[in-house]
């Protein structure tokens, strides 16, 4: 019993919000709900064979694949932009502690930066969204992406470098 899977309802209750935040960051608010349906339906289908030791990494892996499929299918109607208020953790009511604006030294009104997140390569975008919208630690970002903590840190680092350049342009334009 020690390694038995929890009832799917408990698994769903625990992961629905963070996976929703992740997908809004990955595919934008318009398409996130469809991706979220596909993610949890696929999870339910595969659940009896789930990786019991790390269900969070397991569900984020499925969600990431669904987001990639979504982009490949060309279903992208709108730019995958997540509004920052949608990235607020609904359980705690707070923005991820490592908010992206904070990381980039920008005020929240500059959160057009999420538009620039959409331009990042998929791996980097996933890392940034997991770190700043889902508020995972680097070790957890690595687990969710199937890479090491160091590789996750590196992805976020590179992504932030690009985003800082975009941010500088935005500041320039706002002047």
């Amino acid at each position: 019993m020690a390694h038995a899977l929890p009832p799917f309802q408990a698994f769903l209750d625990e992961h629905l919000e963070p996976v929703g935040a992740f997908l809004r960051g990955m595919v934008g608010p318009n398409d996130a709900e469809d991706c979220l349906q596909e993610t949890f339906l696929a999870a339910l289908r595969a659940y009896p064979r789930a990786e019991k030791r790390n269900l969070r990494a397991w569900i984020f892996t499925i969600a990431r694949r669904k987001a990639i499929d979504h982009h490949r299918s060309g279903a992208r109607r709108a730019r995958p932009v997540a509004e920052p208020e949608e990235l607020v953790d609904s359980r705690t009511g707070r923005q991820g502690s490592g908010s992206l604006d904070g990381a980039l030294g920008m005020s929240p009104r500059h959160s057009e930066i999420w538009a620039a997140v959409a331009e990042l390569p998929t791996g980097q975008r996933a890392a940034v969204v997991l770190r700043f919208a889902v508020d995972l630690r680097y070790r957890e970002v690595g687990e969710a992406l199937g890479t090491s903590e160091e590789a996750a840190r590196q992805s976020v680092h590179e992504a932030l470098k690009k985003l800082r350049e975009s941010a500088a342009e935005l500041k320039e334009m706002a002047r």
Partner: protein
Amino acid sequence: MSEFVDRLMARANEDGLLDVAYATVDTPLGKAAVAATPRGLVRVALPNQSLDEMLTRLAAEVSPRILEYPARLDEARRELEEYFDGQRDHFELPLDWRLSHPGFYRRVLRATARVPFGEVITYREAAQQAGNPRAFRAAGTAVGSNPIPIVVPCHRVVRSDGEIGNYGGGPEMKRFLLHLEGAV
């Protein structure tokens, strides 16, 4: 989010992925829980029994694909409510017996299921009807392990000395049910 979850549940059900659906139901003695597979009602948890424990056991013994999906339990909930209102003296629900041990235990429970509303039998009689009159202690164990209480009316099995005997839902619940049926 609840609309989202409703849509997810409906699709899961359509795709045959909902191995166990559950819901809660109010009774005069508190909140009970009911669970069904596509075959039928598989488990009833009485008000003194833990919902979490029921779900954990179902996950281990039936399938972890368990969701709170009351639509599958509409009929079970309606019949239970009618029973507690004194409007119903038998249940017309398909049952999934998989949580009872096949063999003697299940035969005892099937015999229990035939005891009419308002009547009682003894553990010894239950053993006899299951084909082994001397196994009345084992019959007690079988009745005590009933996964579908109330609907499989194990409260109608009593001791031959006139005491009402044990009950998974607690002795006061057994007394309440027998009183409701006019059997005591």
